């Protein structure tokens, strides 16, 4: 009799839970994978929705523009100076400004990620930054990198084909992959190679001859150095007949991009990359084919593809929970959002992310950050933990120095720099934070664990810890590195 009642109650509550929504564990998984680890409020909001309602809501709430204002000096393009004409002092001044603007650029994106109403928008903008890679190390101009970032955000959940055409004419990309040097008389194959290898088809789906022919089609796509705008130079364009992937004609760059978009390999390449980003390190070939077909049928619209991925069985499968390593950006922004530490200077986030080997706007090479398990080595792991430890101790963090080009030359300079530099005080109150999670202390602790960790901690937390120590213990647990 007792068993009957227990079974009935369990069944009832399960049905109720279904009707009421997916529950907090599923909501955590969805939000952490599509944005950042959620706040308590986000978690309970989404827990009430069904899978499909939650996914639709995420997709409906995306934005095309950042809410963080752009400092005027950052948006203004200035042509590269002629170094030969500058004095030593002017050169140094120029370099100082470059470094300052580069840091502002990174900090602004960090700020946007912390403040955004649509974490999915930022997640996808970062995904495309790591797909259509350019680096400020080579492009030099913060204004052009900013413009590229705006392009990627605008199209982050739009149409992949449109984005590909826009990126190919994006000035930062023109510089990054040497299309400036791609002229009829002396073709440069860099862009043609990478657009096939990394942006569309993937290696093995084209020949060296395709690369050479495609490079000819992109000749003349250039840049007005004075304004920083895209410029098609017809006299440098090769008007001859080209053969690319079996098609022959007097192609220009747009024609070649359309040929690339016709290949089934392109949809599959992008889909498997999204699978690795959202589900696991091991794409399922049959599922990739199914999802890529949706992508192609929907004319490369990104939303229907994402919807299909996020509602796939694989996305929700138990073995694909907590099996991905948070990127440095996800770790930092997620921690700040979750613990509600909003007064942390975004420049500190940007520099910490660089220290953790994800320097925004400066991926290591055109392949982007390799990601996954490679985010974690002995140095980055200890640096991750050191940052989290400082954060939960409310330690003051030094603000970046105004002049980071030259190390201090004399002990006096070093001392002066140490005493003069500003400190960012972290006003983090764990008692208040944990106190707001629930009414009863035992519920508070349980809720903190479910909010902060993707799975049970790798070692049980000792009972009876004060709130600050409890939160710190959870943050230093290896499971906190996972999403």
């Amino acid at each position, binding site marked *: 009799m007792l068993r009957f009642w227990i079974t009935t109650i369990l069944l009832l509550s399960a049905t109720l839970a279904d009707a009421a929504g997916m529950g907090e564990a599923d909501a955590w998984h969805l939000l952490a994978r599509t944005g950042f680890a959620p706040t308590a409020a986000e978690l309970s909001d989404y827990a009430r929705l069904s899978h499909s309602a939650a996914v639709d809501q995420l997709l409906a709430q995306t934005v095309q523009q950042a809410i963080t204002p752009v400092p005027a000096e950052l948006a203004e393009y200035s042509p590269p100076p002629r170094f030969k004409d500058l004095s030593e002092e002017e050169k140094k001044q120029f370099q100082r400004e470059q470094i300052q603007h580069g840091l502002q650029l990174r900090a602004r994106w960090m700020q946007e990620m912390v403040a955004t109403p649509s974490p999915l928008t930022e997640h996808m903008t970062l995904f495309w930054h790591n797909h259509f890679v350019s680096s400020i190390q080579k492009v030099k101009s913060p204004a052009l990198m900013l413009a590229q970032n705006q392009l990627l955000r605008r199209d982050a959940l739009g149409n992949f084909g449109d984005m590909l055409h826009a990126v190919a004419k994006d000035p930062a990309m023109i510089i990054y992959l040497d299309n400036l040097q791609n002229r009829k008389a002396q073709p440069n194959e860099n862009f043609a190679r990478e657009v096939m290898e990394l942006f569309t088809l993937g290696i093995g789906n084209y020949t060296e001859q395709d690369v050479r022919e495609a490079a000819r089609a992109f000749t003349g796509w250039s840049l007005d150095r004075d304004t920083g705008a895209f410029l098609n130079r017809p006299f440098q364009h090769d008007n001859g007949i080209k053969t690319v992937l079996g098609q022959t004609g007097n192609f220009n760059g747009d024609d070649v991009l359309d040929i690339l978009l016709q290949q089934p390999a392109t949809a599959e390449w992008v889909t498997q990359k999204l699978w690795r980003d959202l589900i696991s390190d091991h794409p399922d070939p049959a599922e990739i084919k199914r999802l890529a077909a949706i992508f192609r049928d929907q004319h490369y619209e990104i939303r229907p593809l994402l919807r299909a991925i996020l509602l796939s069985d694989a996305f929700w499968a138990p073995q694909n929970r907590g*099996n991905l390593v948070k990127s440095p950006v996800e770790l930092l922004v997620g921690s700040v959002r979750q613990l509600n530490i909003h007064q942390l200077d975004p420049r500190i986030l940007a520099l910490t992310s660089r220290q953790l*080997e994800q320097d925004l706007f400066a991926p290591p090479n055109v392949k982007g950050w390799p990601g996954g398990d490679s985010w974690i*080595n*002995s140095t980055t*792991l200890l640096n991750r933990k050191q940052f989290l430890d400082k954060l939960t101790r409310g330690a003051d963090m030094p603000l970046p120095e105004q002049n980071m080009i030259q190390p201090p030359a004399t002990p006096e300079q070093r001392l002066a720099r140490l005493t003069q530099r500003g400190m960012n005080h972290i006003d983090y109150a764990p008692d208040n934070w944990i106190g707001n999670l629930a009414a009863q202390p035992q519920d508070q602790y349980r809720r903190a664990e479910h909010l902060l960790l993707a799975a049970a901690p790798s070692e049980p937390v000792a009972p009876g810890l004060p709130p600050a120590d409890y939160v710190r213990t959870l943050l230093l*647990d*290896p499971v906190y*590195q996972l999403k």
Partner: protein
Amino acid sequence: MLRRDFLKALGCVPLICAAPNLAIAASPTGEYRNLLILIEFKGGNDGLNMVIPYADDNYYALRPRIAIPRDQVVQLDERTGLHPALQPMLPLWQAGEVAVVQGVGYPDPNLSHFRAIEIWDTASASNEYLEQGWLSRTFAQFPPPQGFAAEGVSIGSADLGPLAGGARAIVLNNADQFAREAKLADDAPIQRSNAALAHILKVENDVQHAASHLDGHYAFKTEFPKTAFGNAIHTAAEVIANQSGVAVVRISMNGFDTHTNQQPTQARLLKEFAEGVVALKASLTELNRWDTSMLMTYSEFGRRPQDNAGNGTDHGTAAPHFIIGGMVKGGLYGKPPALQQLENSNLTYGVDFRSLYSTVHQKWWRLPASSIPGGHFTNLNIIRT
């Protein structure tokens, strides 16, 4: 784990309760008693101005802006000399402990920093893509003793280079800082079901393992140069002084990508290098480890023989490298630069870099011949027997 529990039972935490220094009491056994010290010149070192063919008129014709004047070259023989900043190393050369291997490279060279160093780190062919560092492959097949603090220690670079992809390796910049930070690492048993978690736990265990073995300081009489490389050598010497052993120490020096205004930069770096090597010999001699240590330099590529309009050099191909140690047979090896026979304006190679790796493998560690360095390559006869 046992040692940790044992120390816990004694009531002290391994990282705080430093064990007495036992450097002399026990040294590592087996093939890996012989230590390899890799020095990476990051950015592509200009070999032609490091080991200089000063009797070749082509050298001066190709480098009107940056050639080292003949009267400043540290002469090794009637054709070949060293950059003057390497003067501090001359006594080691005279003691017959410096092998200069010229013309190190490989077929179909790649001139991208990224791809070229990947080729060197993984010991791959130019068109072959391997995931694992060559030392990780070696250690997977022939593991160093478990009792070693780590299989490899990397200093001065966040990446693991040839130790990437499996070796029990840690990145170390400052031994004290490492010991402090290592307290933040857990020492949990590895959970196999979740590969990402298993990876993090492996790194934590490697950190813990190394930290619990790298306790104590050795009071060196040697004075270490107060440069970035001098500090790295000091850290390396402290690791080596430790009783528990390590098979490889890799130190990376940055800043060799000298496209513009090369001379002062390279002179400073080579001076740091030479003074560091002298301190390394002195400290390892104190530890009685000089005869069981071998230093080898490497770099992703050499630089273009023709200097450029900015008083610098662009990416090139083959370059000379140093192999230095108490058991090294000093002298000139390999192929001197053939400046009159450039290919695409660059030098042709004479010694495949995998010959160096193979020599480490078979002659230094006495491991069986195998294809780990990426195939079979002729060993260099540079080690005394």
